[in-house]
């Protein structure tokens, strides 16, 4: 897999971004890749809770501290690979959940946002060149917000998580044009929480749904993940790729992980997935 930064974004909340981001990161790390997973949802930090079982020492430096210039990138990353018995490294860049930190983020100036995006680009070099990271996954906040757009701009591929909710699709269509096309970002859409009955659909029927969605959204759809009650009901602290490795949800996500790995963000002509789609 070529080294890349993936941003996981959506037009609205509740699409399953964090579940997708955490499990994609775990899937890659289980395979032996070194992964950095960053929580850029500073208004509603969640990775610190999802990985609470694996974070064994109090967090000294948050991603907020790195962007504010209070610590180095390496200090803002927490290694949880051993705690989950992963083959590769899994480093977490956690957003500070303290109310004061959230309030502080909301008061940031435009000048700070420029510095933040520059720091995200520098973090990318640190991860890939100095820390032997193969893949960086950024979990963002939904919609048009500075931090999420900063994440999209500094990533190689944007994975947009959508559901089949018609209101959401309308907002998503706008976002794809106004944001992703405007920044000429390689973008793929992942349809999540699709009706449970699609699990029994033939592969042809599923392909038809994908092709219909691609026509509506005018962007490649990388996969369709059906809705599973046990995934929705799982505790927030459960890392499904580790706790339920044989769950069909994970099989769907493994296919997505493989397709994402095959995308060559530099040259659309060369990549297997997008060549077929675009």
């Amino acid at each position, binding site marked *: 897999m070529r080294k890349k930064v993936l941003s996981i974004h959506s037009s609205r909340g509740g699409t399953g971004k964090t579940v997708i981001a955490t499990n994609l990161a775990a899937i890659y790390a289980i395979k032996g890749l070194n992964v950095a997973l960053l929580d850029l949802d500073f208004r509603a930090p969640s990775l610190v809770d999802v990985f609470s079982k694996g974070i064994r020492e109090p967090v000294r430096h948050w991603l907020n501290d790195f962007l504010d210039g209070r610590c180095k990138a390496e200090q803002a990353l927490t290694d949880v690979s051993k705690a989950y018995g992963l083959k590769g490294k899994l480093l977490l860049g956690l957003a500070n959940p303290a109310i004061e930190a959230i309030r502080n983020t909301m008061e940031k100036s*435009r*000048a*700070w*946002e*420029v*510095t933040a*995006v*520059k720091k995200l*680009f520098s973090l990318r070099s640190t991860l890939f060149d100095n820390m032997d990271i193969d893949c960086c996954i950024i979990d963002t906040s939904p919609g048009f917000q*500075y931090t999420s*757009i*900063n994440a999209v*701009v*500094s990533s190689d591929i944007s994975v947009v998580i959508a559901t089949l909710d018609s209101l959401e699709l309308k907002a998503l269509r706008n976002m794809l044009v*106004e*944001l992703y096309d*405007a*920044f*000429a970002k390689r973008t793929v859409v992942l349809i999540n929480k699709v009706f449970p009955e699609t699990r029994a659909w033939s592969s042809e029927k599923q392909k038809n749904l994908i092709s219909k969605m691609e026509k509506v959204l005018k962007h490649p759809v990388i996969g369709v993940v059906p809705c599973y009650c046990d995934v929705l009901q799982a505790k927030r602290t459960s890392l499904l790729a580790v706790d339920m490795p044989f769950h069909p949800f994970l099989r769907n996500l493994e296919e997505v992980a493989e397709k994402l790995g095959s995308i060559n963000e530099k040259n659309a002509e060369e990549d297997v997935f997008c060549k077929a789609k675009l």
Partner: protein
Amino acid sequence: MKVELLLKKLVDKLDLVNQKLDSLIELNEKILKTQEEFLRAGSDKNHFGTELKLEPDVMSLLSLPSSLRKTAMVLLKLEKATAEDLARETKRLRPVESAYANQLVRMGYLSKKREGREVYFYIESPMEIRK
């Protein structure tokens, strides 16, 4: 003798007043000069007489034409680049990149400086501008 001393004190005080008046006149001249510069440059200068800098944050980039946005995005990534460096990233011609980067300089989003034979474009850290 006493009158002489008083007169000397008076002269000293007058000297001091004179010096203060000179300083005020000098300051007034500076203010008038700055105001003239500001009026001459229109919106290109701010009231300190320095180049007006705009912050190329992601929201501002969205309002730029796509051609300029591409150049600005590359500079966010590279931090400092010649027109040739920009052209390598954007896969456009060097003179085209030079034109776009210079346009962004005129608009106040970028700065440029000469280092030897090379001209480098860069985004001045807005946090430092504020200080």
